[in-house]
């Protein structure tokens, strides 16, 4: 059976109605842009962009923040009292914003690109995140992201400091050096 059928299985039952317009109003009221940038493109070091992110991934992460499972102090206040419906609306809003390659990204360093490509191929990053690294469903988009955030968060997975919906990413980072992670982040940030 092909990959499409497997993905269909993973999608399971569709989520209930989400409303991007309600999400936009809520993002405005809670000032998500203060940290995550206008229209979901972050200008702040180590804070991720949210534009064009997979809605299911964003939903799951916001629940993990609200429940105190993924522990990020800066996200405690924004999530306070947030209902599931509001979270799904926010996720729909950020998913609807265009994702583009960053205007401020520097030139690609050939040595880092080669090392990053090698690790990504060896650990099948694209089997889950797709060959474009745009992600699917609960698996996030990791192209167009801030390079410093990618480096920071991959190191957190490796060091057991980031808790996700499962331990996939923690296991995948086993044994990588800081240099390897820098190369991976550089490689991902330079995907189209």
């Amino acid at each position, binding site marked *: *059976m092909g*990959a499409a*059928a*497997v*993905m*269909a*299985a*993973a*999608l*399971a*039952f569709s*989520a*209930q109605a989400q409303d991007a317009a309600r999400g936009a109003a809520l993002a405005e009221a809670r000032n998500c842009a203060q940290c995550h940038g206008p229209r979901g493109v972050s200008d702040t070091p180590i804070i991720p962009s949210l534009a064009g992110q997979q809605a*299911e991934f964003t*939903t*799951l992460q916001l*629940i*993990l923040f609200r*429940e*105190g*499972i993924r522990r990020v102090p800066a996200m405690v206040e924004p999530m306070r009292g947030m209902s*599931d419906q509001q*979270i*799904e609306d926010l996720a729909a809003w950020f998913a609807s914003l265009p994702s583009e390659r960053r205007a401020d990204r520097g030139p690609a360093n050939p040595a880092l690109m080669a090392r990053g490509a090698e*690790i990504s191929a*060896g*650990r*099948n990053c694209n*089997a*889950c995140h797709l060959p474009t690294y745009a992600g699917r*469903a*609960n698996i996030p988009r990791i192209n167009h992201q801030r390079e410093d955030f990618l480096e920071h968060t991959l190191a957190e997975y490796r060091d057991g400091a980031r808790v996700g*919906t*499962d*331990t*996939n*990413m*923690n*296991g*995948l980072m*086993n*044994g*990588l050096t800081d240099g*390897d992670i820098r190369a991976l982040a550089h490689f991902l940030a330079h995907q189209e």
Partner: protein
Amino acid sequence: MKQHIRSLLAAGIMLSPALAFAQAPAAPPAWQQGRPAEMSGSTLAPHAPRLTVTAPDAIPVAALRVPEGFRVELWASGMPGIRAMALGPNGTVFGGTRVIGRVYAIRDVNGQRQTSTFMSGLEQPSGLAVRDGALYIAAMHRVLRVDNVEANLTNPQPVDLTAAFGQATEAHHGWKHIAFGPDGRLYIPRGVPCNICDTDGDRFALIESWLPNGTDRRIEARGVRNSVGFDFHPRTGQLWFSNHARDWAGNDNPSDTLHVAARRGEHHGYPWCAGGFQDPAVNGRLCAEFPPPALILGPHVAPVGTHFYTGTAFPERYRGAMFIPLAGSWNRERLSGFEVITVREGEGGRLIREPFLTGFRDEANNRFIGRPSGALTMPDGSLLISDQQNGAIYRISYGR
């Protein structure tokens, strides 16, 4: 064991997370460990949980099927991730979860269910058991006890028994199902910290029992890869447990199994043998050396919350029968499981297996619309089944 370790290495299989660290860059995540090279392009991966509330009208109760004469209805909803259930002496149903970290409390007030999040922010509190009015919660290696629990539903102050029980802290297969036996002891399983690996057989691949205060540890069963469902036979008191077999050995091998712990401390086969499947990746001992399982449940079906029905409202043939929710496969191209089966004793003790609650699996599209993950007999003789994917509990009753 030396010999065995060498044979594992020869098969190219990681032994333990610690060894895997030393051997970068080949370290796979635990669920992917043991996957042969020819499957490395596989897109199979564990299913994502749903952590948001599913509205009652989106819960697929109308698609569910039960045998003639039974009725299935939605009993409670709005509890993302609910799995194991335990009943308090005054009728409160407690529900455990994994990723979302919550324990729920559900009360029936004048025929309406009132649900609340009883505790939150725990790490995978999937194990629940009630004794002498206290709720015991197993959250990975932590063990908590809430005394006089139904009088403390709003502000529980748990007693932390973690140190006394001294459970291994390795995360993989560290989530637990727990239950009190007829002997008054607390039964706690400890799965293996990998897919297929060599482990310390006194710390992993076990079902243990303890006095409720965390003393007098006893090993009840060995060689059990990962059991997240067991119960005690209503007549014999024997421990019956289900077991999850390894992944990445093919679509149809090995099968998950149901076992009886006939002799205390007996070895049930891991890592060499799973339900008659002699693992080609592991040399050493033969299937013939271990007691055969009571029943082969099927490849990758994922039994969660094995339960003996103790009511009398169901017809004769179901009294004392076992109900096994099969939460369903991920490591298989065609989905398997996603149903509740019954297992009962026929003539001469022969076990008869039948489907009981079906409709969670959409065969035509190879997708699922729910994952049954817990079973509980209620005082009125009805049976509750939890569905972790829809955050719901169904009630199954007979007649009328």
